[in-house]
């Protein structure tokens, strides 16, 4: 959660939230070269962080749905920040919640979920996607959200755009949320990856390999070649990284018994 604590501007909000769709949200990212020092340096702070537990796959219960755990994470962040919920006036999030294994076509929304949460405009809201509308309906304590930002792709973009929005005075106290989950089935085996043709930038990358990590693997291989190393020499780094990962209490393996 990002908040402006210094030099907070008086900003006239509309009665309905101002919604920044992904294209507009992208305009908040500093992607050009030579921009110099960020003009809001020292004026924006990350003041709270919140997580849900982690789970390998959704077990179908409404209380562990992507919507329920998003609400839990937001409430934890608000608690951690020590701000009253009605001070939150901004919400930045990434709408897609799964890029790996999508909700099965034609599968009904579980009855228990519909009984527990107010419905959004999309039937899978809170189950297989997340909209600001659904979140605000199911978080009645957020009475003051006037700025909504739908970030492209990932958490880093949601957070960076939220920080910029706070800096510009578009919002004073903003939640940034990325919710991520998977359903049954193998990851990333459907959609574009299953087609016999490929379009867009994937023609020059994904279509030749698939997993994004191939680029990192090629860099590693080049490193081994250039410096005369072997991959066995990477073991201390790998072991230490694993140890560091287990120190993160919200991590999956920290919660589900790592194999030792």
């Amino acid at each position: 959660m990002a908040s402006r604590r210094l030099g907070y501007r008086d900003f006239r909000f509309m009665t309905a939230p101002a919604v920044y769709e992904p294209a507009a949200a992208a305009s908040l990212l500093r992607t050009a070269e030579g921009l110099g020092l960020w003009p809001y340096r020292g004026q924006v702070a990350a003041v709270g962080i919140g997580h849900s537990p982690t789970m390998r796959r959704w077990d179908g219960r409404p209380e562990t749905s992507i919507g329920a755990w998003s609400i839990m994470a937001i409430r934890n962040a608000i608690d951690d920040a020590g701000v009253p919920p009605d001070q939150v006036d901004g919400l930045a999030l990434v709408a897609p919640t799964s890029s790996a294994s999508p909700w099965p076509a034609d599968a009904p929304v579980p009855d228990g979920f519909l009984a527990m949460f107010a419905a959004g405009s999309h039937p899978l809201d809170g189950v297989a996607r997340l909209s600001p509308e659904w979140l605000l309906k199911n978080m009645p304590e957020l009475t003051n959200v006037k700025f909504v930002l739908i970030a492209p792709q990932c958490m880093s973009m949601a957070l960076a755009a939220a920080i910029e929005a706070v800096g510009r005075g578009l919002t004073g106290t903003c939640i940034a949320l990325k919710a991520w989950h998977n359903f049954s089935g193998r990851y990333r085996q459907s959609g574009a990856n299953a087609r016999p043709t490929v379009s867009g930038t994937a023609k020059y990358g994904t279509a030749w390999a698939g997993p994004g990590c191939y680029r990192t693997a090629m860099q590693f291989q080049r490193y081994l070649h250039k410096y005369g190393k072997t991959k066995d020499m990477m073991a201390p780094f790998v072991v230490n990284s694993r140890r560091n990962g287990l120190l993160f209490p919200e991590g999956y393996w920290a919660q589900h018994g790592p194999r030792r």
Partner: protein
Amino acid sequence: MPKQSPIPDELDRAFYAAANEERLVIQHCAGCDRYQHPPKASCAECGAADRLSWREVEGKGTIYSYTVVYDTPVVCLQPDQPFNVALIDLDDCPGISMLSHLPGTPAGRVPIGAPVRLIFEVTPATGQKVPEWRVVGSGTGTSGS
């Protein structure tokens, strides 16, 4: 090795049309005297769109690095697992590289630094040809660490 058939668009139609004629063309900016690939609407360096043209280049390259893919989500590549994915530096175009499956080279036996030559493969879905690269000489190497 069967791959997804690329669908040309307004940015790369010339690239794929040339590939069907078994020619390799790369976008070139006259203002910066530099190549860029994949194709873009304007030069990534100077921003000019009207100074871009297509230049045919010789099909010679060098293997910069590689990896071996054991588990890909791209369905039409799965029958050939494990397979090489190599990064080829084009000798005539500094800074330009392309991916290759290195047909003829066993998985993991990729000689980094070895010269490669251009070939073209037909992709099954549409018949579109794509540039591919083959190691000059034996086609196998000793690298595999």
